[in-house]
């Protein structure tokens, strides 16, 4: 495997039905590269939650994934409304999801807590009216 493999994706904001596809692609790639199942699972869960949030709350955005033997770094950038109160948003059960998406099973308010739990490092940069950038690091070595 090359030192670092770089992947870039664009996620469209209006299509719930395609949400999760980028996470699936990355998961397949990691499996093919032979990463441990626990590592792949952590990436799949945390990345799916971030991807879904971009679709539901922020009208889509871009995803960059850097894969190296040591770690997987995922940077997800959107130009959505931003998060006014991160501390509140991080709480389990807090959600501003509207009725339409709650009917689909979203809106448990567990996405950000899942991302925190399943990544080794998580950073959120957000500015109201400008957008949100979520950076997730998952360590590949034991």
């Amino acid at each position, binding site marked *: 495997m090359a030192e670092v493999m770089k992947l870039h994706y664009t996620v469209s904001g209006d299509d*719930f*039905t395609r*949400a*999760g*596809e980028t*996470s*699936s692609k990355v*998961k397949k790639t990691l499996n093919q590269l032979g990463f441990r*199942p626990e590592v792949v*699972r952590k990436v*799949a*869960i945390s990345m*799916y*939650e971030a991807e*879904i949030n971009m679709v539901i709350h922020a009208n889509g955005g871009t995803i960059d994934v850097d894969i190296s033997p040591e770690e997987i770094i995922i940077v997800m950038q959107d130009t959505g409304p931003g998060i006014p109160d991160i501390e509140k948003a991080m709480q389990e059960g807090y959600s501003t999801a509207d009725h339409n998406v709650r009917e*689909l*099973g*979203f*809106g*448990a*308010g*567990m*996405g950000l807590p*899942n991302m925190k*739990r*399943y990544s080794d490092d998580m950073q959120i940069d957000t500015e109201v009216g400008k957008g949100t950038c979520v950076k997730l690091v998952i360590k590949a070595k034991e």
Partner: protein
Amino acid sequence: MTVSEIAKELNLKFFTCEDLAAQKEAKGCYIGDLLSFAMSKVEMNNIWITIQTNVNIVAVATLAEASCILLTDGCVPDKLTIERAEEQEMIILGGDLTAYEAASKLSQLGI
């Protein structure tokens, strides 16, 4: 136990990928309809019991590596859900039983 044997025992109908069921082992189960809970609680080869029928269940089940999605209470997957599940090779099956009935039967079978 395979998904195909489980389908027979619980008298379930296949909505997708019946041909894969004889090869697919199932162990353990998670019941729930909220996707973010399912995402973190469904473990590899679990049966995911839900009444959620929209296409997003396929992404969650696939990412979590569930053995199958079991729809209870007579719920039927949307057309798009069926298409996507066939594409992703995710087994969906179901019946009129409740989640409780399904889980207690699975427990009797040692799942």
